[in-house]
């Protein structure tokens, strides 16, 4: 299968501010990719460019389309929920289903109604009558009922309580995801999604600082908790980040010499969130 998203030197400027600075990355089919970065790192700009909502410089191909010029054609095979997207207040739930069913050839009404049946939302309600969580559930049901090759989620569970968030991610992995689909997702709650991701893209100041699969992370990075007496010896192995915790110091290494590091304590693969903090703070240290 061919590459789904191909970005080369993707750049987006707003006046003097550079939101994306020659970012290059690929997204392969069948993956669940987390685009992770601090506020203002360029996550939303990257997603907007991928979805054809904004102009950009550089080269970008999504499902073989040039997003900005061919947004409508792209939306046949891709769908998205943007963080700020809200369903219009006047729209009835039934109307929303009818409309998407009417204009989207890949929409499966039965799936949307099945997803909504699990919620407390009824068809005759207008969006302004629904709570924020219910609105999000309607939006997710509409989007997940589209047989798209690419699903882009920008903070999809914003405003949902923990039960609804868990239910959403379970449905995403168990009911929605299969080898024909690809998901690109951003969220601030990295802990909640790190178990389902297959790949991560770390973005900082408009640049991609890490582009890796989770398997690669396991071989490329290691963390070891070191007691104070061995700290200087361990530091000689040049960790890129360290963090104090419960009287020990956790040191993070890139391209580690596993045998050597094992002398200082038990080695483990850092979690995505730890690695994210380590990578971004490490650069500053």
């Amino acid at each position: 299968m061919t590459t789904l998203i191909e970005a080369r030197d993707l750049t987006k400027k707003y006046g003097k501010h550079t939101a994306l600075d020659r970012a290059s990355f690929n997204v392969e089919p069948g993956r669940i990719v987390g685009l992770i970065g601090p506020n203002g790192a360029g996550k939303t700009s990257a997603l907007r460019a991928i979805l054809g909502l904004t102009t950009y410089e550089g080269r970008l191909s999504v499902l073989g389309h040039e997003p900005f010029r061919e947004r409508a054609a792209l939306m046949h095979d891709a769908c998205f929920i943007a963080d700020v997207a809200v369903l219009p207040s006047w729209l009835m739930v039934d109307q929303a289903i009818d409309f998407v069913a009417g204009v989207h050839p890949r929409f499966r009404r039965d799936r949307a109604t099945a997803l909504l049946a699990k919620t407390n939302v009824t068809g005759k309600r207008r969006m302004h009558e629904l709570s924020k969580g219910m609105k999000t559930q309607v939006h997710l049901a509409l989007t997940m009922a589209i047989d798209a090759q690419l699903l882009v989620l920008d903070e999809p569970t914003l405003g949902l309580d923990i039960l609804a968030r868990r239910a959403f991610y379970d449905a995403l992995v168990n009911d929605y995801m299969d080898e024909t689909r690809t998901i690109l997702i951003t969220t601030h709650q990295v802990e909640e999604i790190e178990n389902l991701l297959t790949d991560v893209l770390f973005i900082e100041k408009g640049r991609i600082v890490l582009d890796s699969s989770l398997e690669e992370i396991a071989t490329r990075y290691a963390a070891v908790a070191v007691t104070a007496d061995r700290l200087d010896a361990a530091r000689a192995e040049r960790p890129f980040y360290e963090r104090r915790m419960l009287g020990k110091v956790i040191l993070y290494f890139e391209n580690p010499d596993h045998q050597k590091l094992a002398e200082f304590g038990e080695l483990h693969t850092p979690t995505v969130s730890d690695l994210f903090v380590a990578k971004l703070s490490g650069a500053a240290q």
Partner: protein
Amino acid sequence: MNTSSSANTMVWLVRREFWENRAIWMLPAVIGGLLILAALFGTYQVLGAADLATVQAVVQAGAVDGMLMIVILFFIVMSIYSTWYLLDCLYADRKDRSILFWKSLPITDTATVLCKLGVALIVIPCIYFAIADATTLLVSFIVSVRASTYVGGSLWHASNWIGIQGLWLYLIVTSAVWYLPLAGWLLVVSAWAKRAVMLWSILPPVAVILAERLLIGTHVLASELGERLGGYFAQAFQYTPGDANWVVTGIPDHGSITTPVSVLRFVNLEGFFSSPETWIGAVVGVALIAAAVQLRIRRTET
């Protein structure tokens, strides 16, 4: 996209506009309802103490005037509503940010803009036409029954009815062409403004007019705009008082009443469509609509 699926998308887009803007049909329905209520329960007052023959003569001669009044009332309300609709239609979903939901669907921005334009210039006028017709029919019926002695069959001349239908069709087509540049401008503002669409629709032309007057000392734009906004009836219709288009009905002891022979006599079909002003305006309108589409593609935030 093939033709059948884009036609299908258009149907859904128009339906969507009805869901969002229920005033499209509610406003004319309320006006029609009020006129019907007035016909049902109002007190008819005709020429004070005039005799039966005089009143019959006046009703006979003036029936077409009454029908025209209804057309004009609906046309004025429609013009105001459509102006507001065009100004709001590409702004509302940017304001409530639902534009990102609409843009997540496989619908081109060109289709979206053209649909809204079509609703304003064709769908809304056709609805006003239908409701105005139904209203005229019911009011005529009620008046004929309630005041049968005076009115008799004078409200039911086929030529009057055919004339009104023709007039509506002529109004819909010519006003759409004449006001195309205005519609295009309103769409541009609606697709572009971050807030205060009303203000933005008025301020730039006023600023240019003032700048022209102060810097160059001319008022070309002011007169062009005035001509466009106020010149529709002069362009689309022709009438000269006292000529063969008018019937003067003498009424004993009350002078006379002047009514049009047929409303279609005033239609200036050939003059309207052969005038360069009509087509220059249309070209400007098309350019502005194209600009609105480009803005719609680029602007997703307010």
